[in-house]
């Protein structure tokens, strides 16, 4: 358990140092309230509209892909840890390797599918857009 106490201690320090800096800064810095400088920065122009703009749907696609793949790494790590010792203890190569190859294979199929269906295509080419429109028409 002691290592986690130490890590917790670092966590405390890692919060404490920024807070200390903020405290120092609060003591040092001036405060001259003025409306103009509080304006949202839009390259010197007068800000327009809300900042919560709609953004590219692809961000969401990427997030989904990440969610899946990142969590799959959770399942890969236990395997990597035991892989070598299992081999050393005489478990057959295929017994330990095959399941993970299947697992990664399924993941790759999913990835390639997402790729081919444009989940990771950031900019759809005008040509592709036109084809889509024609087909739907």
């Amino acid at each position, binding site marked *: 358990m002691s290592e986690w106490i130490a890590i917790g201690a670092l966590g405390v320090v890692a919060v404490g140092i920024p807070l200390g800096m903020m405290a120092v800064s609060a003591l040092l810095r001036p405060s001259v309230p003025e409306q103009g400088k509080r304006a949202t920065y839009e390259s010197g122009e007068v800000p327009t509209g809300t900042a919560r703009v709609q953004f590219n749907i692809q961000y969401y696609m990427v997030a989904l892909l990440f969610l899946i793949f990142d969590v799959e790494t959770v399942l890969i790590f236990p395997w990597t840890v035991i892989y070598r010792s299992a081999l050393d203890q005489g478990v*057959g190569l*295929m017994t330990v390797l*095959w399941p993970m190859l299947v697992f990664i294979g399924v993941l790759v*199929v999913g990835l*390639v*599918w997402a790729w*081919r*269906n*444009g989940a990771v295509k950031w900019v759809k080419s005008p040509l592709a857009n036109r084809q889509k429109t024609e*087909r739907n028409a």
Partner: protein
Amino acid sequence: MSLLLQSADAGTPMWSALAPTILLGVTGLVLLGIDMLWPDETSNTVLAVTSAVGSLLAFGVTAWFLVAGTGQTRTGGEITLYGDALVVDGMSLFFTLIFTIVTAMVVVASYDYLREQRHRAEFYALVLFAATGMTLMAMANSLATAFVSLELASIPSYALVAYLKEDKGSVEAGLKYFLIGAVSSAVFAFGISLVYATSGSMIFGDVASAVEGSEMVGVLGIGVLMIVGGFAFKTASVPFHFWAPEAYEGAPAPISGFLSSASKAAGFAVAFRVFVEAFPLGAIPAGVDWVLAFQVLAVVTMTLGNFAAATQEKVKRMLAYSSIGHAGYALIGLAALSAGGPNGDVLGASMAHLLVYGFMNTGAFLFIALVEHWGVGRTFEDYNGLASAAPVAAVAMTVFMFSLAGLPPFGGFLSKYALFYSAIEAGFWWLAAVGAINSALSLFYYSRVVKAMWIEEPAGDFEIGSRPVGLYAAVLFAGIGTLLLLPGFGPVIETAQSVAAALF
């Protein structure tokens, strides 16, 4: 192939016992592969044929296994795989039979249903992945695999229900299905964690030996109750049934059929095994009387489902509620168990009912898909006079309705009879009585459909332009199946009861 052997210990058979599951999963991957190769112009025909072939192959293999006796007592008993996490026995094969045949009907019917839709490959693939999950549910021999496979079946289903994403009803249905599904899976997971806390294992057999004389009866009881909740969701039983009417009504009709028959059967498959194997009646502490819970659930579920169905104005919604009612009947399989009773008969009858239900209920929903395809409305009145426009399909629908109601000339009668009979045999004649009364009541609302189709005058002219091949084939297949299950019920019930008896 020798490399692919499961080498846990000598004499353990190959994982080829999982062939149906693997076939379904691989078919799903192949569908994705097809979609990869031609992402923009995926051929509906190719997809439908591939998925139908895949599911029928799986069906064939399952039937062959079942006939050949794989995993059954007469050929050396159940086959356990992967450190007892999965078990292939008669019961799992029997349920796999239900899943694969329903999947086949659904994908064939979807061929026409999806003609105007985009993302078809995804649809088929998700159906097959869900089916894969269901087969695993039937095989789960550990709470862990039960949970994982339940989710593998559920998660594609959420997406499938919300598949018509431009349609508000579909999205709403998907949302509700998902929300309640997520909650119940959390409840289920928490229940599993509590059981694990008291028993220190997730393998059913080990749990069973650990709960006997367990000290933390309270924790165990709460855990078991929560696990009951998880199954109640999957089987659309009280108290997690709220999603069912919405989801079935909003979802694409083939998916409604898929969920209400295959998915429900899967829930029962895993529930049967969990409660019989992990919490056997002889071993559980007295405070954890799950049979009583299931008795209450069965009575409430069937009554609520039937009464609610009787008040509906939309056919699909009526079927949705009736599906809840049928979950109540099937729950008798768990509610009428008793230490030393004819448990195999009870459970087997419930399984046989689920098989018959798989045909008649899927067929009914596919008929609705057909009607939706024609653009006829959704209420009973909209069905008026449908029989004169489409007599063959109407005959099939009539068969489904009467069979669901349990009228004698159809498969549903025998399965309900077997269920109630075995309940009486087990000494729970009041359960059978409640079931029979509900069943009689159900004739009222089922016959409304029949009456509308055959007897009422059509309100206007029907525009039945096309006779979609896939939908017709699937509906007729389901109809013939429902009919043939009357004379052919013998092998079904005998198989079901013998494989169920092997559990005890």
